[in-house]
């Protein structure tokens, strides 16, 4: 047992929190830039302390529990939503050295743990005893179940190509060619499904402001609300990290530019994905619930299955078989 075992997770947690702080600012700056605004500028230089101020404000807020809410479930729901968001970060290999839990079934672990958050959302919406929250929670459950399946199916192609569920092995298998090229269909399905998993625009139905006011967290205030928001943001980064690992070659450099350290390569690809997520948020309207279901079951799932079939087929073709 080295000091790394104990200190590592703490350092990681602090790093992630610090990163989330910057990233929320980054999102608001990107959105502001795309929408002809300046974004936060008041708190700290260039608005750098805006998120800190926001979180502090939330911590100082009165903690309200609705009179008719189920108190125990109401209190526990943000924790259920929040803990898995951090737990999944353990298996993401940032470089071949920096990975905190290099377990054999890393990918499976990620997908399994992340779906626990749905329970938190469902419990939060139900225990609030609010109709809007309930509608939001039900939408969320329906959506996450529908999109979990294409998400898992789409990564099967990657698993077949890498021959492993270990995320470090998957990155190492991409040294010659990133999986985004041979697994293009899989990537598209994965990306769309991950947007839906993250409840991001255009799939932000559970918290559709214009319809459900705020969705499942409408009754939450103060730090409980902050927990939900934090969980959501951490997931954005976890999912961007996973996309980088699965399809963009993780820390592998492009054009053989090895003079940049691997962590820089990882960060660059990761930020690109995060930026695209924000860009989509600034551009698209929200899809409707029934259309969401149709897209999930009638388009993404068949595409994911086709992807598995094609991957298996091409694997046996000589010449290109190495890439699949």
């Amino acid at each position, binding site marked *: 047992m080295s000091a790394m075992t104990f200190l590592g997770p703490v350092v990681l947690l602090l790093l992630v929190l610090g990163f989330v702080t910057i990233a929320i600012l980054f999102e608001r700056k990107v959105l502001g830039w795309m*929408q*002809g605004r300046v974004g936060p500028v008041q708190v700290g230089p260039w608005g750098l302390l805006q998120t800190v101020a926001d979180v502090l404000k939330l911590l100082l807020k009165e903690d309200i529990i609705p009179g008719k809410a189920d108190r125990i479930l109401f209190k526990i729901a943000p924790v259920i939503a929040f803990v898995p968001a951090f737990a999944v970060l353990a298996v993401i290999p940032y470089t071949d050295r920096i990975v905190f839990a290099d377990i054999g079934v890393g990918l499976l672990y990620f997908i399994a743990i992340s779906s626990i958050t749905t329970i938190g959302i469902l419990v939060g919406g139900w225990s609030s005893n609010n109709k809007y929250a309930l509608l939001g929670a039900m939408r969320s459950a329906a959506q996450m179940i529908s999109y979990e399946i294409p998400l898992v199916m789409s990564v099967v192609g990657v698993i077949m190509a890498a021959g492993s569920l270990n995320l470090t092995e998957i990155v190492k298998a991409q040294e010659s060619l990133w999986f985004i090229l041979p697994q293009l269909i899989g990537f598209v399905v994965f990306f769309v499904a991950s947007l839906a998993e993250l409840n991001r625009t255009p799939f932000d139905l559970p918290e559709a402001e214009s319809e459900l006011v705020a969705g499942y967290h409408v009754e939450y205030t103060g730090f409980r609300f902050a927990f939900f928001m934090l969980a959501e943001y951490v997931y954005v980064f976890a999912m961007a990290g996973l996309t980088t690992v699965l399809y963009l070659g993780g820390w592998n450099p492009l054009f053989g530019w090895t003079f940049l350290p691997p962590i820089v390569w990882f960060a660059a690809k990761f930020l690109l994905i995060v930026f695209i997520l924000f860009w989509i948020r600034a551009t698209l309207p929200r899809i409707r*619930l029934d*259309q969401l279901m149709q897209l999930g079951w009638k388009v993404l799932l068949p595409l994911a299955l086709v992807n598995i079939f094609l991957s298996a087929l091409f694997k046996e073709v000589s010449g290109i078989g190495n890439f699949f």
Partner: protein
Amino acid sequence: MIRTEEMLLNVGPQHPSTHGVFRLLVKIDGEKITEAEPVIGYLHRGTEKLAEDLTYTQIIPYTDRMDYLSAMTNNYTIVHAAETLMEVEIPERAEFLRVIVMELNRIASHLVWFGTYLLDLGAVSPFLYAFREREEILDLFNELCGARITYNYMRVGGVKWDAPEGWIDKVKALADKMKEKTEEYDRLVSGNEIFINRTRGIGGYSADDALAYGLSGVNLRAAGVKWDLRKDRPYSIYNRFQFDVPVGETGDLEDKYRCRMEEIRQSIRILDQAVEHFPEAGPVMAKVGRVIRVPAGEAYTQIESPRGELGCYLVSRGKDKPYRLKFRRPSFNNLQILPKLLKGENVANLVAILGGIDIVLGEVDA
């Protein structure tokens, strides 16, 4: 045993998508609406009753506060009614200024609709783009009459303020700029697959239904009835301008969207012509007495506001105050079809359909 029951959902009066203090009681089965009942009156101020104790000039600021997104057309409706009974000749320059500000206001109003509607559908950016352009129109109004929302600009007999120097050039520049901007909106929204899916075939109704419910404005035209008071009952100097009246076919949300966006373009066309023929100089007020006394009689005047037929029924007993004043407010009439449209739709469409009608609560409740 599993038991299901309908849920009574109270939407509003403080809900982000009711565009003001509008309340809607909906019974939902899952997410499907079985019954909807609008509840209005939260913003009722009794404008019509108040007007009976006010002189004609004093009524004008009250009309600002009815349809607060298009105060210029509301200003016009009361002065137009009084002028009709008084039979005054309005100076040329004042007529042009009135048309310019009314069309600018129509563009501003449609921009607000465009932005908030896309916000209802979940897209944030178009809202900010639309308000960016609306801001420039408001700046022009600010320069003209010192106010951004409640203008109090028109008077019986003309307008209060003449255009400041260079103002007309700014209107021209703005009209040119808006042509580019409408194309930008088109590129961003009109072809968007999600937007089309959210609007096509949703909330449609037939032309007969539209007429039976007394709809007017875009809500009527989107169903295929070509009826625009600027063309069919010309008032002011609208008969001098060339413009088209866009109509839809099915009355669905997409048709309404396309009609409104096309109306912005047609308003720009009118602005172009008005700026070109704008009289060099001249008075902006007709010779009316200091105290306005409207001869005894009754008049109903109707104009095309951005939301539909804005009517003003004025009964005068020859005093300086009206005996009775009645506004036909298009938002109020258009809202009546809502329960019919909502039946059988889901909650997501509720917001889209309500937004598509384009109500202003100040006008619904007056």
